[in-house]
């Protein structure tokens, strides 16, 4: 494996007496795509939120680029270079495409020391980013509430591709996409990984995981039930890990 980018050691999360995560350990390398699989309620989204700074773990530790890492807020995670695309979309439908694309990172120019939004520069960047990804949106100045689910998801995906960073977390990013858009989305993921960015993708669709991932990590009942290279396992074996018919950690390739 390449140099590890993010290492999780025994991360747990309790909600009162309920243990959502009972000790997760795995790692992600630079430029590696890891598919995170697991049944509903296995703790995948909780794990993503912990890495992305939305939740604090109850115990355990994380190493990001070899240094102890714990994001107390999404802003901190972002500053460290972790981008996240959440399952329920994170768009403000009351503002336009450009405003959403630059949410929290607006391009400004100083007028008398006061930051003023540079709308023209931002619009140019968004236009370029969407065009190069092949996403077609009639006007970048329409409010997102007037766009379709697929267009909205495309904005989110383009956003992460554009900002990149060092690690990208995708929580079921293709739920609202059509066949062609999904194919393009998967291509984007590869493209991002080829730049040396680590990618964690949560998905329910086995085919997607096998198309894009280098490694497959299965979570069951809050622990890692399998961590195998994609080319050393099969969809059936992974399904067995998800449902628990195989012993924990006993992927076919060991």
């Amino acid at each position, binding site marked *: 494996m390449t140099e590890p980018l993010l290492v999780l050691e025994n991360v747990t999360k309790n909600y009162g007496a309920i243990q959502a995560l009972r000790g997760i350990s795995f790692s992600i390398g630079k430029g590696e795509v890891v598919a995170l699989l697991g049944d509903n309620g296995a703790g995948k989204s909780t794990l993503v939120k912990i890495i992305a700074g939305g939740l604090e773990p109850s115990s355990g530790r994380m190493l990001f680029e070899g240094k102890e890492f714990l994001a107390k807020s999404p802003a901190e995670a972002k500053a460290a270079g972790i981008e996240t695309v959440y399952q329920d979309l994170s768009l*403000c439908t*009351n503002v336009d495409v450009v405003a959403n694309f630059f949410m929290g990172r*607006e391009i400004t120019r100083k007028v008398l020391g006061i930051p*003023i*939004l540079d709308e023209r520069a931002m619009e140019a960047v968004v236009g370029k980013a969407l065009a190069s990804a092949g996403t077609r949106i009639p006007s970048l100045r329409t409010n997102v509430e007037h766009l379709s689910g697929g267009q909205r998801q495309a904005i989110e995906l383009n956003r992460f591709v554009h900002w990149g960073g060092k690690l990208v977390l995708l929580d079921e990013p293709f739920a609202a996409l059509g066949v062609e858009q999904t194919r393009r989305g998967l291509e984007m993921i590869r493209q991002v990984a080829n730049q040396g960015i680590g990618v964690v993708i949560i998905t329910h669709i086995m085919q997607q995981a096998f198309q894009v991932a280098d490694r497959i990590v299965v979570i069951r009942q809050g622990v890692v039930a399998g961590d195998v290279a994609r080319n050393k396992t099969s969809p059936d074996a992974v399904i067995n890990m998800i449902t628990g018919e195989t012993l924990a950690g006993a992927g076919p390739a060991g």
Partner: protein
Amino acid sequence: MNPRTRKALEFVLDNLVWFMLVFVLIVFSIFVPNYFQLGIFANIIEASSVLGVMSIGLSLVIIAGHMDLSVESVAALSAMTVGILFCSSGIGMGIQLNPQWLMVPVSLLIAMAVGGIIGAFNGYLVVKVKMSAFIITLASYIWVRGLVLVISGGRSAQDLAPAIRWFAIQRLAGLPLTAWIAVACFVLFSLIMAKTPFGRHLIMIGGNETATFRAGIRVNRNLVIAFVLAGAIAGLAGWLLAIRTSGATANLGVGLLFNAFAAVVIGGVSLKGGVGTLPGVYAGVLLLSSINTAINLMGLPANFTQVIHGLLVLAAVLLDAFKQTIRQRLA
């Protein structure tokens, strides 16, 4: 529908309240005797300055998806503080500063600081204790008014220092300086909301707070600033109020809150947050003020004003729903 009609229609929808204002002014000018004079129009702008300033602060917080019911009482407290310090009769202490003009910035700063502190208190409770802004500011609405009664003992302060009164008397282009202050505030905050990252963030927080938090925007900080601004602006409104009445009484400004609400809603700000612009709010304020003036000129009993304002708010909310359906059809 071709793109041009669509654009025109969207423009009308976006600026509906301005069209209403023009329509109302034309109708009144035709049907109400003596309505069509420059003096009347100047009077409309002048009469709406306190309400206008207060509506700005209220709008900021509502656009950010929260609520501030305390603005009216905060304005009264600021007015009373200025009154007690700088009035020479009643309960006024008649403090004199040398040179005289120094009293203007000092009284203004005190008024805004009083408002800002209460705004910070509201904001802190909303953000940190995660209580509903409606309840917290309702409580502030009550206790701040109570504080006004406590510090004044129910009595009033009269004869504000002439150096401060100057703002109500001095005119520029036919309008008193107090009215220009309100106009300047609208211009300033309209620019802040439309052109700066802070304004953009407030609008987005009002639209989807979770999304902005995830995007790394410091939601709590922005919200506290919005509450502090709302308080400080209410303090400014109180300062203007004290100047206009040359002092302060314990029940100063009672009922302004509901007018401010009416103006904000009529101006196209959605109570759900995330929607609305300050120029629209100013048009709403002017609309209310022109209707008041018409009622006065027609010699209707003033009690009608309230009935009409209430109906106007209802009309505004209905109109908002209607606009939504049209927009959905456009999309």
